[in-house]
């Protein structure tokens, strides 16, 4: 991905006045473009760029010759801010990374600090965390499916339907941690508050309502001939490329690679539950969409088991309020809804704030596949492929 250099671009445009589209020239097309082609800027303000993605597309008619994603429009300097905050003050900041799965961001950071401290987490807290993370995965995939419908031109219908159920999960989150989007719920050594009294019943109710609805989405989208026409065999990513190019999460599993950090790292207590890794068949947009749908089912399975076996006990280990972890560094990774979310945390042992906090965001890795996937496709396919990668810009631009 190229951060464009506007001065150089301007100079080039002045030097070559016969450039086809001087104001759209960029680092990849420094001397203009071939006859009969044009450069189209899709975004950062565009209905289907999932936030503030800018795609610089070289077109020949409707055919996409090459595409360059340009990012950075939502950069807030998260990693630098984190260096100037106490350890605990970073938690609410992580909420703003991937705003569709704040719980996972909380988790990866909290996990990193816990590994640095070497804290033992109470069992109940582990269960609560798993319940929250998996509910978050469902909520995030619901949003992804809904947005995907929009990307394919469905007049908001899929989105209305999926958001209706996502809302139920957000209600659950609200009852647990008081917020619907920016939870700030996980704490070093556990969770901030215990589950409210009637949580189990309410969660079971929500899951029971969710199950038939997921089948309904599948009927609504997967049995729609036009949806199949638009997604099958589009943006095919073969397993070798997926691994070599660093795809993660549903994109990697959509290509048929059976890997999931929840299993390979077995962090928290995922190994206690009976579930399996969902993989797609063909590595096309439809497979990635199918992974979302089936992962939601697996998550429901995990949450149900966790609710059944939720033990009593403390929900927070004794951890000092003002942390000063020992010097050292950790690399913590979890499976966020978008893939492998990692944090590299360095403590110098003297300060109450992290020395360095680096985030490896899954959406960024997946988005970097776009130039590879969207070669020689039509504009409509470009949008379909972008949507199937499910980028979230809070996380990509940080």
């Amino acid at each position, binding site marked *: 991905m190229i951060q464009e250099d506007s001065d150089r671009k301007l100079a080039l445009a002045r030097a070559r006045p016969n450039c086809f589209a001087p104001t759209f020239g960029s680092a990849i097309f420094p001397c203009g473009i071939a006859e009969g082609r*044009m450069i*189209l800027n899709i975004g950062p303000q*565009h*209905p*289907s760029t999932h936030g503030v993605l800018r795609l610089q597309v070289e077109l020949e*008619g*409707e055919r996409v010759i090459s595409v360059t994603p340009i990012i950075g429009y939502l950069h807030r300097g998260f990693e630098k801010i984190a260096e100037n905050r106490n350890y605990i003050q970073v938690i609410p900041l992580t909420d703003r990374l991937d705003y569709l799965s704040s719980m996972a961001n909380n988790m990866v950071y909290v996990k990193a600090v816990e590994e640095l401290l070497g804290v033992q987490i109470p069992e109940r807290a582990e269960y609560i965390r798993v319940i929250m993370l998996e509910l978050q995965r469902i909520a995030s995939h619901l949003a992804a499916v809904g947005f995907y*419908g*929009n*990307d*394919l*031109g*469905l*007049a*908001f*219908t899929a989105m*209305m*339907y999926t958001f*209706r159920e996502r809302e139920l999960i957000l209600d659950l989150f609200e009852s647990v941690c008081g917020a619907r989007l920016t939870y700030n719920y996980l704490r070093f050594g556990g969770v901030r508050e215990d589950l409210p009294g009637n949580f189990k019943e309410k969660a079971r109710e929500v899951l029971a309502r969710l199950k038939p609805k997921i089948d309904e989405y599948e009927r609504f989208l997967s049995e*729609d001939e*036009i*949806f199949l*026409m*638009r997604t099958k065999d589009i943006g095919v990513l073969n397993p070798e490329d997926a691994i070599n190019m660093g795809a993660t999460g549903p994109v990697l599993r959509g290509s048929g690679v059976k890997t999931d950090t929840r299993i390979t790292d077995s962090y928290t207590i995922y190994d206690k539950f009976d579930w399996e890794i969902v993989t797609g068949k063909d590595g096309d947009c439809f497979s990635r969409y199918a992974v979302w749908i089936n992962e939601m089912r697996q998550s429901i399975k995990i949450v149900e088991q966790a609710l059944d076996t939720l033990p009593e006990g403390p929900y927070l280990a004794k951890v000092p309020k003002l942390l000063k972890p020992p010097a050292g560094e950790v690399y913590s990774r979890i499976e966020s809804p978008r893939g492998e979310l990692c944090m590299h945390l360095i403590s110098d042992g003297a300060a109450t704030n992290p020395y360095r906090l680096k985030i490896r965001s899954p959406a960024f890795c997946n988005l970097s596949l776009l130039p590879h996937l969207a070669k020689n496709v*039509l*504009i*409509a*396919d470009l*949008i379909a492929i972008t949507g199937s990668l499910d980028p979230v810009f809070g996380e990509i631009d940080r």
Partner: protein
Amino acid sequence: MMENPLVKGIVGAAVLAALISAALLFLIWLERKFIGRLQHRYGPNRAGKFGILQMVVDGIKLLTKEDIIPEKADRAVFTAAPILAFAIAFLPFAAIPFSESLVVSNINIGILYILAVSSLAVVPTIMAGWSPNNKYNLLGGMRAAAMMISYEVPAALAIIGVVMLAGSLNMVEIVKAQEKIWFFIPQIIGFSVFVVAAFVETARLPFDLSEAESELVQGWTTEYSGMKFAMLLFAEYIHSILASLLIVILFLGGWHGPVLPPAVWLLLKTFAVMLLLMWVRATVPRVRINQLLNIGWKILIPAALLNIALTGYARLLLG
């Protein structure tokens, strides 16, 4: 006095324009409401009871909005496109019979006239796509042109079957010929072809490639704002009404029906077809341009030709 063709024409045009505009406002409101309910939400419900005044409010908004003409646009063409689109959209209604006598101009070649003037709509579309000097407009305009041109062929071919059965190009005669049996039964292939082609001509989901808001922002109307945008929007909507009317007149028995007066039957049927259009719009994603053209050239045109052959053969057999 009404026998004077000039007077009849002017009065008819005025009445039609007023009626269609009123119907338009109502239908747009209905569509928003109906799609809202299909999507499990209310739809407009703020302006007036059930949001019935929503279109009035939107109209005022569009009228009072700044009319922006892009700096590098071709001003004359840019301004002419919406006017032309709006005017051309009304032309076919002159030959549409609302009942046996309720027709502005009962011309012998009615259906031919309708096909001819409705295919003019591609001109303002190209104008609107090209003149603002915007790439999204251009792509949308090119798509719209490709769609309209390639789907006029199957539509016209499908109509030939009807004309063969009715033995006339006159719209009134075509409806009269359906007294015994509505043409969608003997012409089921032609009917299917025509419905799909009409859907495409109306440029609505799943065939709204010329707008394609998730791909081309707003397609060929991207740079238009205020009243000009409203006119383009209305023109598109009038095409939908026309397509529904044509489906009803050509295949669904026109004004034939028991008890109620003929014009009411025609409008009711048209309304039902409009509802179907809206229902489909709320349900399906958009097809891709190459798929759309493939459907047109590789499926619909052969099917329409087959339909003509079958109809001709049947006529030969039955005398």
